[in-house]
């Protein structure tokens, strides 16, 4: 085989490999444009049925409970309008907290309970030192008591 032919085969193989990778990435891109559904969409039946999907929202305050077996965690995920109960067995990310964002992947059971196989924490784009966070929390509390 001549050097030119070898080079050509190498180029064609390279282009094919890269093209395949790009095709895979694009298909992943298209499938995950809607990375998660909101609890309202799920309640309205707009979420896909018959396959796993993700729900994104906030972990409802005071909803996290552990079953007696010590591994099953139950909580509700909410977008303040609707709330979906979730059951999950497995490790939770450090940033998973009540009142914070989370994305859960799994399937919706017939009982309306979402059986999650994966729980991800979604954090926001705010970065500040703990003192500033405390000050904000304090201000929120004061505002809430004033409102009452």
């Amino acid at each position, binding site marked *: 085989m001549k050097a030119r032919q070898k*080079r050509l085969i*190498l*180029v064609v193989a*390279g*282009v094919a490999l*890269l093209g395949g*990778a*790009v095709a895979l*990435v*694009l298909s*992943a*891109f298209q*499938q*995950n*444009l*809607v*990375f*998660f*559904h909101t609890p309202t969409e799920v309640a309205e039946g707009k979420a896909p049925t018959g396959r796993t999907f993700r729900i*994104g929202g906030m972990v409802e305050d005071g909803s996290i409970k552990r079953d007696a077996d010590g591994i099953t965690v139950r909580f509700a995920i909410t977008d303040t309008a609707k709330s979906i109960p979730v059951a999950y067995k497995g*490790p*939770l*990310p*450090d*940033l*998973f907290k009540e009142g*914070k964002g989370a*994305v859960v992947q799994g399937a919706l059971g017939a009982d309306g309970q979402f059986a999650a196989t*994966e*729980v*991800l*924490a*979604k*954090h*926001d*784009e*705010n*970065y*500040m*030192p*703990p*003192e*500033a*966070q*405390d000050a904000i929390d304090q201000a929120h509390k004061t505002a809430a008591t004033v409102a009452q």
Partner: protein
Amino acid sequence: MESGQRFSLFRYAAPHLFYPLAGRLAPWFAAAAVILTLVGLYLGFFVAPTDAVQGEVYRVIFIHVPAAWMSMFIYLIMAFWSAVGVVFNTRLSAMMAQALAPTGAMFCFVALWTGALWGRPTWGAYWVWDARLTSQLLLLFLYFGFIALTRAIEDPRRADRAGAILALVGAVNVPIIYFSVKWWNTLHQGASVSLTKAPSMATTMLMAMLVMALASWAYTIAVVLWRVRPLILERERHTEWVGDVLETAEGRA
């Protein structure tokens, strides 16, 4: 007279004038990069406070965000030079595009790598296929494609043209990456710093990040100037001025 003045603007677009200019400028940008990196690291590790939510791991941001910005900027500059090369048929512009690509790919990989190492302790996953991460991965493949394409084609003029087409078509991906967090549901959070709103970061954190971003600019300029120089020599090897450069470099090299 007038035309002479007009053309002086494009004086350094001539390879034989740009070559020595690049050699003189590069060390200054490299020095700026070193100083800015040291200042940025000092601010990032010793001045910027711990994050209230994420703790210390957020300090990855000081390379993650500048690297992600650079990976997008460099692709746009590559597309710009490619367009200039196609429209005005200038020799230097394709060489600039080709000198930019490896550094862009490096920053793109760094953005993905640091993102993975940041995602695991915060989100709970090294990788998810959300729109932001997926389009950034596509950018890496576009860089690889550009590098492979321009190096695989032997005839430089055809290589330049093929590269230019890929650079220009691929540029569509850059706004997709940038706005993906706004247009679609993503796990990736929105931008902390943008032109349209006040930054949502404590000032010292923001300062550290911006200094690191400047450092990556300075680094990119230095390393690209260093990379384009031998590229110019090779492309222009039949000219008299390259002969002169080689004669003078003979003793040193």
